[in-house]
């Protein structure tokens, strides 16, 4: 229970702390910030792997301790979202926004993504929670930086992405013979992951409307 509370606290406060800093220092563009935070997220992901490996002798990590989590996939697509200016890059950006809550859901359903028997200080857990916070932060920055609206079709791409993750997860668990069982809980987890994209879209839609209202009010005031 306390783990869940800590997870939510970290996920809420990482974006708040960074956004307060952005509000105070008022940077000209979000591009550099996006790059910096994406690199930080990738760094944390690599660190998570190396810290896990360091717990084992000769750094040979058993297959059931390899953490190929949803956040690993997000670490890859975030760079396509930032640097690829084609339609594919834009889609990656949208997928990242719509699936930004998924690492939290994965953590809630399956604590094995961040637990290691040798991790006395809870370092891997902290790194994973921090990553969840960075994912939400990057999603907010993407939304703030975006000029075009996310269309409902993007939800479909996000669902395909989640299904892709489900297949990889299934294969990894099947071939590496991990402890994860393919029971109703696994299917429920994947279903919640898919539903959460709709939920995020709903939040985005409501916020976007509110943001646009604010912007048009400002323009009206300037015109007057």
């Amino acid at each position, binding site marked *: 229970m*306390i*783990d869940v509370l800590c997870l939510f606290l*970290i996920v809420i406060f990482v974006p708040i*702390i960074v956004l307060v800093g952005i509000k105070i220092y008022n940077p000209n563009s979000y591009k550099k910030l996006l790059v910096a935070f994406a690199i930080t997220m990738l760094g944390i992901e690599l660190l998570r792997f190396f810290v896990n490996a360091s717990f084992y002798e000769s750094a040979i990590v058993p297959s059931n301790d390899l953490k190929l989590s949803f956040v690993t996939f997000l670490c890859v697509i975030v760079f396509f979202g930032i640097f690829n200016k084609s339609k594919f890059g834009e889609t990656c950006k949208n997928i990242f926004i719509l699936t930004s809550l998924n690492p939290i859901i994965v953590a809630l359903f399956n604590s094995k993504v961040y637990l290691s028997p040798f991790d006395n*200080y809870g370092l891997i857990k*902290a790194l994973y929670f921090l990553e969840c916070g960075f994912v939400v932060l990057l999603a907010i920055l993407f939304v703030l930086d975006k000029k075009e609206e996310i269309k409902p079709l993007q939800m479909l791409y996000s669902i395909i992405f989640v299904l892709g993750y489900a297949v990889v997860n299934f294969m990894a668990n099947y071939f590496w013979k991990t402890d994860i069982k393919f029971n109703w809980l696994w299917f429920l987890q994947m279903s919640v992951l898919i539903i959460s994209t709709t939920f995020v879209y709903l939040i985005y839609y409501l916020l976007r409307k509110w943001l646009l209202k604010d912007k048009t009010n400002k323009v009206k005031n300037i015109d007057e």
Partner: protein
Amino acid sequence: MFLNYILPLIVSFIFVFLFVFFCTKIYKNQPYEKKLKPIKIIFYSLVVLEIWKIFYLIAQNGQFEPLRYPLVFCSLVMYAYPLFCFKKNKFSNVAMAFCVLPSFIVFLMFVAVQWQYEMSIIQAHSYYYHAAMMAVSIYLMTSKLYVFKIKDFYSVFLCLFGYVVFAVGLSLFIGGDISIFGPNKSFIKFFYDKVGYAIGNLILIIVIFLFCFGIYGIIELCSRKKEKYKDCENLKEKTND
């Protein structure tokens, strides 16, 4: 208890009061550079005492514990003094801000745990060290060298955040407890035991953020209210005229 805790505390408070009172009075209408003179004296004394402490402890025990490195949370403010008390630069304001709030936190933490220790020469040094830090932080405010601005809270938070990361990293690499943020000999060990050491530090960073924001926010609100009141008074005077 009286000789080990209450008396040294009373002496420390008297020192803080006398330092702040006389320095504020003497340097009231002096230029910026001259107002910094007492802080320079405190800084030199702290450096000399810190060097003496290291030699004394090594001579006494034949070893030097990680907690005694001058990298602990309490030593931090000492490193901020040279950033503003010699030459004004772009870090001066941040360094001053960093000397005010953390000094209060450090002093409170110091007072909270000292009752359990016997008085010794090292303890006397500790009392002087913390009282001097407190005195400087109050003097910075009374002499108006430092004025609270809400924007400063973020830089103070960033400095503290950087320090927590540094202390945690160093504690893990060296293996000892380099600061109060060390895993084993910590003031907040009960909290670390509950949530885990790494998560505990992340939560601590959030608490530091909220604390800095809260203090600066309250001060900002109070000063705004004061300004509003002053404006109202001026307007009343003008209408009366």
